[in-house]
C-alpha cells in the first residue's frame, strides 16, 4: 500500500532535513550567527559622517578672517559669514589662537586645546610689516600624519594672505589682488557637507558578506551530501532529482534572503524604496544559491569546496567593493551579476532612488539570476545522476 505524496510535501521534508543538518553543523551555525552580529556591529561602528574639514589654527586671531575668505568662504574683503568660533563655511575650520607659543604647543601635542592639524603663526606686527613692505616670516606648524597636499595648500594660503595684506596696505581692490578672473562652476548635485559616509558605502559589501556566508554554508551542505552519497539514499524514496534540487534551491535562497533582509532591517535600510531593496535581496540570494549549487557539486572535500566557492564569489564581490571608491563604475563591472543588486542597495539607501532609476540594473541582475541559477541546477543534476 503506498500513499501518493505531493512534490511540495517531499520538498518540504527535504528542506526540514537539511535545516536540521544545518543546525547540527556547529561551524556554519556559529559562523552564520557570529558573522551576522559582527557585520551589523561593524556597520554601526563605522563613521556615519564624512570629515570634510581641515582644522587650522591661526595667530594673531584677526588673520582668521582673511584665511576664511581665501578658502572660498567670506572673510576679509567680503561680508564675514563665520560665527564667533571662527568657523569657515565648509572645508576649513579656523581656530584663533592668542599666541604662537600656545598654537605651537597644541599642534605638537604638548598642550590640551582645540584639535588642529596645522598652525599658521604670523608675526604679531604682521599688518605693520606688510604696510611698510618689510620682509615677513611665517611659521607653519604641522602635526603628525598631515598629508603633503594639505601642508602644501597651507603654505600656499600663507603666501596668499600676505599678497592680500600687501594689496590692502597699498589700497588695491581685493578683486585685483588675484592675478586671474576665476569662474567657478559646481557640476552635479552639490553634496558638500552631505557626502555619503563610509558606513553607507560599506552597506552593500556587508550585505554581500552575509550572502556569501550562506552560499558557503549551502555549498558545504551539498558537498557533504555528495561525498557521503546520502543524496542517492534520498533518490530511492519517492523523491526525484527535481525534488532534491528544488529543496536545495528553496533552502539556500530562503536562508540567504532572510538573513540579508534581517541585516538590512537592523541597519535601518528600509525606507521609501523598501520594495526595491527586497527584490534586490531576493536576486542576490538566488545568484549566490546558484554559485553554491555549482561549488557544492564540484568540490571534492571541505577545502576544495571552500576554494571553488571563493573563486566563484570573489568576482561577485567586485561591484560591492567599487562602491567604496569615488568615481564612475567601469563598464565591465556593470556587466557582473551582482552589480544591479549592490547598486540598488547603495542607490536606494544613500541617494533615495527608486524603481524608475534602478529597473535597468535590476533587470540585468534578474537575467543573470536565470543564467547562474540554471547553471547551478544543471551542474548539480548531472553530479547527482552520475553518483
Amino acid at each position, binding site marked *: 500500500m503506498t500513499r501518493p505524496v505531493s512534490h511540495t510535501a517531499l520538498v518540504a521534508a527535504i528542506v526540514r532535513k537539511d535545516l536540521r543538518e544545518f543546525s547540527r553543523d556547529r561551524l556554519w551555525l556559529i559562523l552564520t550567527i557570529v558573522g551576522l552580529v559582527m557585520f551589523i556591529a561593524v556597520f554601526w561602528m563605522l563613521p556615519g559622517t564624512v570629515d570634510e574639514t581641515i582644522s587650522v589654527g591661526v595667530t594673531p586671531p584677526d588673520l582668521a578672517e582673511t584665511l576664511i575668505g581665501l578658502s572660498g568662504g567670506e572673510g576679509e574683503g567680503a561680508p564675514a559669514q563665520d560665527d564667533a568660533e571662527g568657523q569657515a563655511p565648509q572645508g576649513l575650520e579656523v581656530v584663533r589662537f592668542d599666541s604662537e607659543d600656545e598654537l605651537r604647543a597644541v599642534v605638537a601635542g604638548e598642550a590640551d586645546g582645540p584639535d588642529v592639524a596645522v598652525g599658521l603663526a604670523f608675526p604679531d606686527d604682521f599688518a605693520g610689516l606688510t604696510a611698510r613692505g618689510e620682509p615677513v616670516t611665517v611659521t607653519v606648524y604641522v*602635526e603628525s600624519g*598631515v598629508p603633503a597636499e594639505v601642508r602644501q595648500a597651507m*603654505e600656499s594660503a600663507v603666501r596668499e594672505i600676505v599678497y592680500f595684506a600687501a594689496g590692502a596696505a597699498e589700497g588695491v581692490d581685493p578683486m585685483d589682488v588675484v592675478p586671474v578672473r576665476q569662474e567657478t562652476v559646481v557640476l*552635479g548635485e552639490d553634496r558638500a557637507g552631505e557626502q555619503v559616509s563610509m558606513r553607507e558605502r560599506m552597506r552593500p559589501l556587508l550585505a554581500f558578506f552575509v550572502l556569501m556566508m550562506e552560499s558557503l554554508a549551502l555549498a558545504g551542505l551539498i558537498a557533504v551530501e555528495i561525498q557521503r552519497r546520502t543524496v542517492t539514499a534520498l533518490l530511492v524514496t519517492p523523491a526525484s532529482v527535481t525534488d532534491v534540487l528544488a529543496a536545495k534551491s528553496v533552502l539556500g535562497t530562503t536562508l540567504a534572503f532572510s538573513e540579508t533582509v534581517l541585516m538590512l532591517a537592523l541597519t535601518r535600510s528600509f525606507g521609501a524604496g523598501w520594495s526595491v531593496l527586497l527584490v534586490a535581496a531576493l536576486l542576490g540570494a538566488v545568484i549566490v544559491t546558484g554559485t553554491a549549487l555549482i561549488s557544492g557539486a564540484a568540490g571534492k572535500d571541505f577545502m576544495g569546496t571552500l576554494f571553488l566557492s571563493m573563486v566563484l564569489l570573489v568576482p561577485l564581490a567586485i561591484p560591492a567593493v567599487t562602491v567604496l571608491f569615488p568615481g*564612475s563604475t567601469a563598464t565591465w563591472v556593470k556587466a557582473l551579476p551582482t552589480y544591479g543588486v549592490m547598486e540598488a542597495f547603495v542607490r536606494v539607501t544613500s541617494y533615495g532612488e527608486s524603481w524608475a532609476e534602478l529597473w535597468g540594473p535590476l533587470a540585468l541582475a534578474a537575467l543573470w539570476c536565470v543564467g547562474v541559477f540554471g547553471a547551478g541546477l544543471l551542474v548539480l543534476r548531472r553530479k547527482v545522476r552520475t553518483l
Partner: protein
Amino acid sequence: MSASRILTVFRKDLKLGPRSPIFLYAVILPVLMTFVVQVAFTSLFEPAPRLGIVDRGGSELAAAAEALDGIAVSRPAGDAELRRLVEANDLDAGLVLPPGFDDDLRAGRQPELRFYIGGESLASNRVILTVTTLDLVRAVEGRAAPVEVVVEDFSKGTLPLSARLVPLIVMYALVMAGVFLTAFAVVDEREKRTLDALIVTPVRLGEVLLAKALLGFVVAVAMALVTLALNDALGSSPAGLLVTVVVAAAMSTALGLVFATAARNTQMLFALIKGTGFLIVGPVIFYLFPEWPQWIARIFPTYWFIDPLYRVALQGDTLADVWWELLVALGLTAAAVGAVVALARRMEARLAAE
C-alpha cells in the same frame, strides 16, 4: 629521527603541495592583498585630491601641477571630457587654461581661469585645490612671494597608512604558509587516513610532522620576503631582515604544528584557527592606530616577531636593535614546540586506537 626520511616526505609534499587549494591561497593571496592594500586601501583612506587640467596653450601651470606631491593630476582631452569626469566624480576639480594664459598673466591682464568643482568632491579637497591652484598661478606670474614660509613638522617619523599596513600583509603571508599550510597538510593526511598508511612505514609521526613543518617554514620565509619586496620594505639590513623573517617563520610554523596536532579534522582546524585568530593577528592592528596604547600589543605572542620585522623592514633598525625581542620569540617558539610534543603523543595514541 632520520633526516633522509624527513626529506623524502618533504619532497613528496613539495611535489603534491601546489595541487592543494591552501598552497595556492598561501602563494596568491599575499600578492593579491599587497595589490588591494597598496592600490585600493590607500586611496580609500587617504584619497589624494584629483585635478584635471585642459591646457589649450601649453601653460607652465600644467607641468608645475603635475610635479606637486599629494595631488593626482590628469589631462583630459577637452572641455567636454573634463566636465564629464568632474560631474561623474572621477575628478574633484578641473581647470581650463585658455591659449596665451601665461603671457596674459605675466602682462597683468588677469586671464580667465575656468574652475569646475565636482558636486561630490570633499569640501576639504575643494579648499586644497583652490588655494594650490592660486599658488601655481602666482608661480607662473613670476613675482617673488613677499614672505618666507618656515615649516616645523611634528611628524616624528610616523609612517603613512600604506606602510603601517605592511605588517598586516606580512603577518597574513606568515599565517597562511606557516600556520595554515603546515596544519592543513597534517590534518588532511589524517582525515584521508594516508597518515595511517605513512606511519606503518619506517617513517615516524615526529618525522612526518617535521617534514610538514619544513614545507610551511620554507613557503613562509619565501612569501614573507616576496611580500616585503613587493611592498618596498626590505630595510637597510639584509642580514637582520633575513634572521627576523626566519624567526617569524619558525614561530608561525610551530603554531601551525600546535593546531595540526590539536585538530582532528579540517572543520575543527578551521574553527580553532577562526577562534584563536585574533591572538595571532592582534598586534598588527596596533600599527594602524598609533594613538592606541602600544604596550597592549606586547600581550600577543606574535608581537615578538612582527615588531622586529616592522622595525627592521620599515624603520631602518638592525639586528642589534631587535635581538632581545627575537630571543623572546624564540622562547615562545620553544614553548610551542613543547606543546606540540605533548599533543603529538596524544595524537599518536589516538591514531593507534582508531
